[in-house]
């Protein structure tokens, strides 16, 4: 198991991520969401970001060395809510 940290760099007021891990964990972090995950096993992360129109945000996760890897790099639409899913393997 390795610790994987998820972060959303944004001015957005709120964001959430959840990881599929049997019964999934769902976190609403102030700075980062931290999960203990199995190395080499594929996972699915679902994210929700609420903010203002035009806010850019970058969803990242750390690898085994602690380096940030981008999972979603986009801009909030005029609706102010972005959500989606992304597969990754720690």
């Amino acid at each position, binding site marked *: 198991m390795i610790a994987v940290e998820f972060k959303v760099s944004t001015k957005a007021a709120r964001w959430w991520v959840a990881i*599929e891990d049997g019964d999934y964990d769902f976190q609403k972090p102030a700075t980062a969401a931290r999960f203990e995950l199995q190395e080499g096993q594929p996972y699915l992360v679902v994210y929700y970001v609420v903010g203002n129109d035009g806010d850019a945000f970058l969803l990242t996760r750390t690898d085994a060395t602690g380096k940030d890897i981008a999972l979603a790099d986009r801009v909030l639409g005029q609706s102010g809510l972005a959500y989606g899913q992304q597969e990754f393997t720690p």
Partner: protein
Amino acid sequence: MKRSVCLWFGLATMAILSGESSVCAQVVPELPPEIAAKLGQMPGVTAAVGDAESGLTPPQGEAQITFGPDSRAVLSLSDTFSNGLQWQVVFSSPLASENGAVELQTLDRLAAGTKAQFGLDYVLLDPKPGSFADLTEACKSVKAALADKKLEDVPSHCDDRLYGFAYRHGVSRDVLKRVTAAYFGNAYLKKLGVDVAASYDDYDFLDETLAKSSGRRTSAEAGIRASISRVIDSWSLIASLKRQRAYRNDESSLSQICVPIDGTAASRCAEAYLAPPRRIDDTVSSLEWRWQRTDDVAIAIHASYSQKDHVTGVSIPLYFFSNAARTLRGGVKFNWRNDTHDTQTVFFVSSGFDLL
């Protein structure tokens, strides 16, 4: 009581998941109705699901007319910002209400006069997905549906941009429903809000010299409310508490006044109030449950309790028809109160519109 121009300002008519007095869903025309209705005015979500790239859900309006013993006109305006704040302004006026009929519905003493209300809510989305298997399958379904259409520039990622694209290119409602269920299957919408309202009405009475007198009285109320809604099942539970200061004719002063008819031994008699309207302070608490069964059918059960009169009023509106575009909706409302056991049936029609 005298009424001339009838512009009534009443309780907010909002979407089923967010409003105060109506379960008429304010369907944004460009969104699939089932999604707009389920998600109501959740900040950002309505537009994001159906139309992520084409713009913010515009400010909403709804006009409603009710027919029956409590005929009235209601105009409501509202908008939701992405920071979670939602405002609403409601104007209403009785059109031809029978005496006392207006209070039957919600024990709202201000509803007897022309009323304006302003409400401000903080909306908090708690967006939990249904299941991860559903997430994967929902995205696959959307991609498969789009592949059948052989479109260009299809977004590659499984996110709201893809789903908005799918909606705009006519992917079936069943497929989009799966998206809603996958992303918001365990989502709750929580709201906490305040509102203030004022209404005025004119009263006729006879003064000490039995001269005809009239006066306008302004009633006011302030309240708080909280609600929780489960997005995917389209039900809401709403609790509110209001402090009201209202005016009513002093029924104890109602008397028959007779004056002789000149040149005869007969008299002409009429009933009149011999005192100015009296002030009534009351606290009204209410609990409401709403459920939107289908795109067209919704029901609510609204119970109110007056602490001053120890009276409970119950109102059950049924929304059961809409036109094809779902811009026009209507239904019937049954009202009852436990002190007089009076019942009331009113019919209503409402129409939603965008302000921009």
